[in-house]
């Protein structure tokens, strides 16, 4: 394999069924159901997916949900805000550990 993260792999996602069709079918059925319109709209779910894609840094998901967000009627302003939400949670998740550090220092220090 010449490099990791081949864009062609996204379209081949379904071939994951080759090793275990039953589990793949369960996953894809569930996945499809998750993104159906419900208490949240398809657009809102696509924006959440886009944010999570950035949090888990999945290039396949970023491509897929950039496209889906546009097709569900979101615009760049909304998509950028979603990415900032992901970034803020990631940054906040690091920073809030600082309280653990602080308490350690307060206990161990004089």
């Amino acid at each position, binding site marked *: 394999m010449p490099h990791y993260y081949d864009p062609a792999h996204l379209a081949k996602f379904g071939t994951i069924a080759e090793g275990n069709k039953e589990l793949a079918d369960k996953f894809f059925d569930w996945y499809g159901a998750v993104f159906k319109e419900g208490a949240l709209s398809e657009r809102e779910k696509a924006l959440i997916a886009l944010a999570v894609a950035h949090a888990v840094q999945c290039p396949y998901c970023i491509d897929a949900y950039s496209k889906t967000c*546009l097709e569900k009627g979101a*615009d760049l302003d909304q998509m950028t805000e979603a990415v900032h939400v992901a970034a803020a949670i990631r940054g906040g998740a690091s920073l809030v550990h600082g309280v653990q550090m602080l308490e350690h220092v307060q206990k161990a220090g004089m």
Partner: protein
Amino acid sequence: MGAPIELAVLEEVASPASGPKGTKSLRARGSTLAPAEEQLRVLDALPLAKGDFDAALAACGWREFRPAPLEILQINVGRLCNMTCRHCHVDAGPDRIAENMDRETIDLCLAALDRTTAHTVDITGGAPELNPHFRYLVDQCVSRGKHVIDRCNLTILLVPRYADLPAWFAERGVEVVCSLPHCRKRNTDSQRGNGTFEKSIEALRRLNAAGYGHGDLRRRLTLMANPVGAFLAAPQAAMEREWKADLARNHGVTFDRLIALNNMPISRFLEWLLESGNLQEYMERLTNLFNPAAVAGLMCRNTLSVSWDGTLHDCDFNQMLDIPVATPAGGSAHIRDFDPLVLQVRRIQTRRHCFGCTAGAGSSCGGATA
């Protein structure tokens, strides 16, 4: 030669103040894409595994593609416009001063209308309000008891000469179908020119003040949304809910319904697809998403489209591609020779651009079709 337009009107539509101009018409730029046959050639030359529209129709049972009963006469009164949006399928603009329907052709349309079952007259352009016979046409249709639609670019309503139109429409029960690509500024301005969004919101406020957009069926305000880019229209019902909330919250504007259309790969949108490197992928997407359930409700089945010079077409897109209705033994496709019985059994003319109307939820001048 079409109806002469007053010089003052021509100067007004050419001015930036009358409406944003995102580009110039293909015609004005002398683009190689300006002639319809070149647009068709570009589409036909694309390698597409599923690119045969008639085969796609036949595969879902439409071996002969013929109309349903006629419901709508769509009259394109001209290509003159105070805007030059980047996606315009008409290649309209302030330079299109020759192609505007004259009074004689308008009277031929009315005579034809009287011989049909059509309950609706859908008036489009360009900016149809710029045609000197526009108000005459509306009044004649209203007096015949027809439902009249004005396809409005919104910004024209802020030009002083046309500022009385919201009230004038309201008195006559005209439905106003307004182009607004997105409920937010960025996308609208990027497609239709800087400043469009603010002008559009102001025009919507004036329509609201004239009684439009408050649930009164005689003053129906419809927004027509189309994607700003190489992707399909969003789901219409969800978009309507979200836009209603967004426009009310952020701008205090209300409307009655939203219809969503896909962009056709012709004219200025075709140019953009080519220049941005999106054409192949967009056409693959349209052909892959061919939806058999979208076919029966296509506008070409319940609408006839008349061009400024009186030629009849199956739809406004065919009109822009110079594809007239098929007539037996090469007979006339002009409205002066209008024969409802012959037209009712015609074969609808299709080419690759038709995949734009059958993709996803389907797309026509009335919105989604599936």
